[in-house]
């Protein structure tokens, strides 16, 4: 009996080990297995390329390699290239960063890499070129990527954003096709509660105060305003904009770069927010809430207002309560201002070029094929493939315009990601139709329009990076300042530190090198403007 048990144990251990290794094998050869079957009918050998990018979490439980998806096969077919896809383990930003570092350390680069070079590669794209990691595409793009090049020439602002400070091209960028796609985050309010109380949607900070107080006192809501604690970072700018400041670097009305958490207006904001906290209008646990906890509060009616994304928060909250609570209604409201009639100073905006894209490494084995493959995303055909998918399955043409099929609209990303890449990022231009196919609820459309109304475009910093030799100093100084800011925010908010000591807090940041940091940012912005 005992012997049987031991034998069973050993067997299960062995199968576990073999199982794991088996998976890894298929991950690396999955792509080439597919391509083998496709080249069989071609007379000439198709060029082969290796392509590294993070596989979407929705696809991870369905396939081990992108080459197995309908979209993966279609791209290879349309571009006439065989691709061996390689995926890093994990899908959080940090895990992918780690994987890239390991890749670089190994010294063996794939032909093409997709990555958020701007924000996540230390030193930025200029450094990636200088380090000999990425290939300089400045000479290649005009001739070998005509569709991308035309688009960039027609959109000089974007052209500026996708180059390095010295004017080099390095990427086939992910771009949003229109401004309105860059807005998808902001304050959200229970409109059914507003109706009950006979209130209008809040516009000013005063309105917000009144509304939250009414939530607490008349409707007995325990946490009138609640949101996930990580949103106490830069995104809190959506509330701070009322005071003409932000929770980050921003450009003021005179064109000067400022650091929001060191401005006097920040103190005014904190005073108000502290008042909200003391009177119980802000969730008591605001420093430690995660997504699930906030969702529970919102859906159960323990909260009256929140901050979040139109799709993954507002959209999913609305869908979750569709049947269980038909009265439930939430919609995004405009970013608050101080005086009625003002246009919000700051808010949320993602970028037309969020820093993500595909690039050729210096070890690219077939430059011509890689350029051709990546340019495909910017052709009309490529746009349709990436944005809409396969005709008949994910979209139909009606009167010459593409419309998503019901199957697409009713499904979630598990199905969509098999056919399109428009749900995340990639080397193509995301069409404006994406949003309206994805966000089909009228409340979401309304929210986006309201959040689009702001002056954030003039005040948000463009995507900039410090110079090569400034990076280490900048990182060390800024990380300390940021850490200090985070802690003090909560101390001021909870009243553990009196706001009378605000000046001391600012001078502490000065001592940590705040001026140097702001100077570095200012120089970077000036260089950007002169590109």
């Amino acid at each position, binding site marked *: 009996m005992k012997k049987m048990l031991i034998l069973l144990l050993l067997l299960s251990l062995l199968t576990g080990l073999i199982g794991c290794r088996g998976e890894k094998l298929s991950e690396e050869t999955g792509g080439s297995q597919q391509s083998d079957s496709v080249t069989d009918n071609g007379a000439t050998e198709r060029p082969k390329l290796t392509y590294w990018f993070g596989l979407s979490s929705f696809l991870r439980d369905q396939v081990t390699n992108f080459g197995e998806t309908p979209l993966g096969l279609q791209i290879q077919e349309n571009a006439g290239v065989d691709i061996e896809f390689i995926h890093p383990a994990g899908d959080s930003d940090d895990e992918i*960063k780690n994987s890239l570092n390991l890749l670089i350390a190994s010294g063996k680069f794939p032909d093409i890499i997709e990555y958020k070079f701007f924000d996540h590669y230390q030193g930025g794209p200029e450094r990636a070129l200088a380090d000999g*990691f990425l290939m300089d595409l400045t000479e290649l793009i005009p001739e070998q990527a005509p569709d991308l090049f035309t688009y960039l020439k027609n959109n000089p602002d974007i052209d500026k954003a996708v180059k390095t400070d010295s004017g080099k091209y390095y990427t086939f960028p992910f771009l949003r096709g229109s401004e309105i796609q860059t807005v998808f985050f902001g304050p959200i309010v229970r409109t059914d509660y507003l109706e009950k109380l006979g209130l209008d949607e809040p516009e000013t900070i005063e309105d917000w105060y009144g509304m939250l107080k009414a939530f607490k006192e008349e409707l007995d809501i325990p946490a009138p305003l609640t949101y996930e604690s990580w949103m106490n970072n830069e995104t809190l700018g959506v509330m701070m904009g009322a005071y003409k400041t932000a929770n980050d670097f921003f450009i003021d009305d005179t064109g000067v770069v400022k650091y929001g958490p060191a401005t006097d207006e920040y103190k005014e904001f904190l005073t108000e927010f502290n008042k909200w906290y003391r009177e119980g209008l802000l969730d*008591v646990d605001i420093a430690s809430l995660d997504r699930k906890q906030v969702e529970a509060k919102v859906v159960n009616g323990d909260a009256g207002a929140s901050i979040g994304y139109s799709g993954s928060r507002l959209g999913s909250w609305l869908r979750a309560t569709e049947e269980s609570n038909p009265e439930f209604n939430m919609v995004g409201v405009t970013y608050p201002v101080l005086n009625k009639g003002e246009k919000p100073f700051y808010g949320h905006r993602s970028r037309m070029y969020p820093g993500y894209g595909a690039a050729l490494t210096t070890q690219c084995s077939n430059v011509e094929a890689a350029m051709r493959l990546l340019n495909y995303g910017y052709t009309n055909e490529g746009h349709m493939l990436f944005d809409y998918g396969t005709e008949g399955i994910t979209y139909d043409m009606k009167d010459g315009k593409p419309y998503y099929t019901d199957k697409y609209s009713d499904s979630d990303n598990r199905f969509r990601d098999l056919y399109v890449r428009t749900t995340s990022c990639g080397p193509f231009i995301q069409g404006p139709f994406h949003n309206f196919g994805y966000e089909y609820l009228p409340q979401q459309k309304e929210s986006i329009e309201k959040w689009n109304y702001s002056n954030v475009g003039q005040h948000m910093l463009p995507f900039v990076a410090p110079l090569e030799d400034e990076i280490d100093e900048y990182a060390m100084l800024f990380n300390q300042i940021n*850490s200090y800011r*985070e802690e003090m925010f*909560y101390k001021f908010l909870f009243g553990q530190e009196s706001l009378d000591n605000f000046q001391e807090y600012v001078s502490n940041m000065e001592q940590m090198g705040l001026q140097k940091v702001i100077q570095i940012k200012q120089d970077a912005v000036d260089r950007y403007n002169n590109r």
Partner: protein
Amino acid sequence: MVLPIMIYFVLFKYLPMYGTMIAFKNYKPIIGFFDSEWVGLRYFHQFFSSIYCWRIIKNTLLLSLYSILWGFPAPIILALLINEVRSKVFKKTIQTITYIPHFISMVVVVGLLKDLTITSGLINTIRELMGFSREPLLQIPSYFRTLFIGSDIWQQIGWGSIIYLAALSGIDEQLYEAARIDGANRWKQTLHVTLPGIQPTIIILLILRIGKMLNIGFEKIILMYNPSIYETADVISTHVYRIGLLDNNFSYAAAIGLFNAIINLILLVSANQLSKKYSDTSLW
């Protein structure tokens, strides 16, 4: 016969130590180990001149100290208590119940903890019943250590007691008999027979524990903490994670890791020396 083991140790443990040199260089993965610029003690200097330096060292030491102070005796006490129980069924049940939490993933435990400690959570409900007011427990710096160590004890006490129970079963029955004849009651027996009986086990485990003192559970703290409790929750490893690793500052992280390791080594050797002096047991 020992040769394969020796080769294993040399190849995989000693040889890679040369990698610690990145603590003294401005390591860039793409340039590699040998070509990265030598900067000497720059990162050590950076670490020690940070305004948070004292705080994070203090937090690390305190957390470790309390963890040993409360967390180390707990499994011993549990083992002693279980040992006293007559009923076999009860014994087995208690053992199973107490060591099951060991198998729960740390992430799940912290998730539970988070849900229990928010203002509307169960722990606060109990506190209210006992006459205290509801508080967001994970936002108050002074509660952090209690929550951290308390949840650790809950999770590890059962599993940790297993080794002590094994040691307890190795104590000669005749010693107990002799003690009883001499007129010792249960308590005296515990003090003079049981504890000395498992003394070698306790000491070895204690020395090993001290050797890990500065490696306070990084993952668990990262999961549990938030900026409002950095005061007590921020330790060396979490601080370095934020400042160093998130920006791919490998050299900074390596430098602090080296500092950590050296301190651990000093503690380990000292603990061993002390133990050699005052008892018969030691690691080497």
